C-alpha cells in the first residue's frame, strides 16, 4: 500500500485515494474542430511508461482534491507531488 503525500494533507495511506490515470492530457476542443481520432487519443491512448509516470490522484477520503503525482512505475517511488493545473516540476528522472 503506497503512502501518498497529499499536497494538502501530507502523507496518507493509499486506500484514501483514487488514481485517475495519466495526467497532463488536455480535453480536445472546440468540439466542432476536433476529429474522432484526436478524441480517441485523449480518451484511450496512454503513455503507460516503464519508469516515471505523471498521473492524477484524488484524495477521496480526505480533502477531496485532485492533484498530480510523478511516480516511478517500477519502484513505486513518488518523485513529486503538485496541484492540478500546475506544470510538471523537474524530477531526477527529468522529462
Amino acid at each position, binding site marked *: 500500500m503506497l503512502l501518498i503525500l497529499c499536497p494538502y494533507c*501530507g502523507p*496518507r495511506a493509499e486506500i484514501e485515494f483514487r488514481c485517475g490515470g495519466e495526467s497532463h492530457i488536455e480535453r480536445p476542443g472546440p468540439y466542432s474542430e476536433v476529429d474522432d481520432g484526436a478524441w480517441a487519443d485523449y480518451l484511450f491512448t496512454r503513455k503507460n511508461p516503464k519508469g516515471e509516470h505523471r498521473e492524477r490522484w484524488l484524495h477521496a477520503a480526505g480533502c477531496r482534491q485532485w492533484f498530480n503525482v510523478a511516480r516511478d512505475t517500477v519502484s513505486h517511488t513518488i518523485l513529486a507531488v503538485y496541484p492540478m493545473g500546475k506544470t510538471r516540476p523537474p524530477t531526477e528522472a527529468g522529462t
Partner: protein
Amino acid sequence: MSDVAASKGAEAARRGPFAGLNLDTRASGVTLADAGPCARFLLRGGGAAALAVGMALHLDMPREAYGCATDDAGRAMLWLGPDEWMLVAPEDDAAALTQKLDAALNDLAHALTDISHRNAGLIVRGPQVADAINAGCPLDLDIKAFPVGACTRTLLAKAEIVLWRIEADAFRIETTRSFAPYVVALLQQAARDQD
C-alpha cells in the same frame, strides 16, 4: 387531519441515526456515546468566503490540514479541505448561524449547505480509544502525531468518517447516517478486542 407536528410534536417526531442501536461496547477500555443532534453546515468556498465567515463568527478559520477552531459558544470549524469546512454548533444556534453566514457571505463565491441530518456523531472515549479506532483507521493516532483538536476526513474500515480528537482519550466520529450501524458494530468489536 393528521400531521407530524400535531400528532407528536416536532421533538418527539425526530429519530436519530443511532435509534434502536445498542451502543454498549461490553469493554472496559472504550465506550461509545451518541453525540446527539446538532447543527452542521458544510462551507465550500475560497479564501474570501473563509475570511468573511471567520470575521462574522469571530473564529480563527483553520487554513491547514487537521486544523480546527472552536469557541466557548460550542461552535467548531473543522478544516476538511482547502475549500471545504464543516461547522458544528449547538442545534438551537442553527437559525442565528444561518442568518449571520448568509449576511457575511452574501455575494461571495461560496456554497453553504445544511448537513445537520446527513451526519451521525459518535463520541468514542477511553484509555484504549486510539487502538480501537486503529482497528479500522489508517492514521497514526499517537498523541504527538494526531493531537487534541486535530481533525480530518478519513476511513474507518469501509466507512468514510470525519475523525476529530476532542480530548487525549476521546474522539468524535462523524459519519453519514446510514453508516452508523456499521461504524458502531466495528468499534464495539474493536473495543472488545482491546480488553
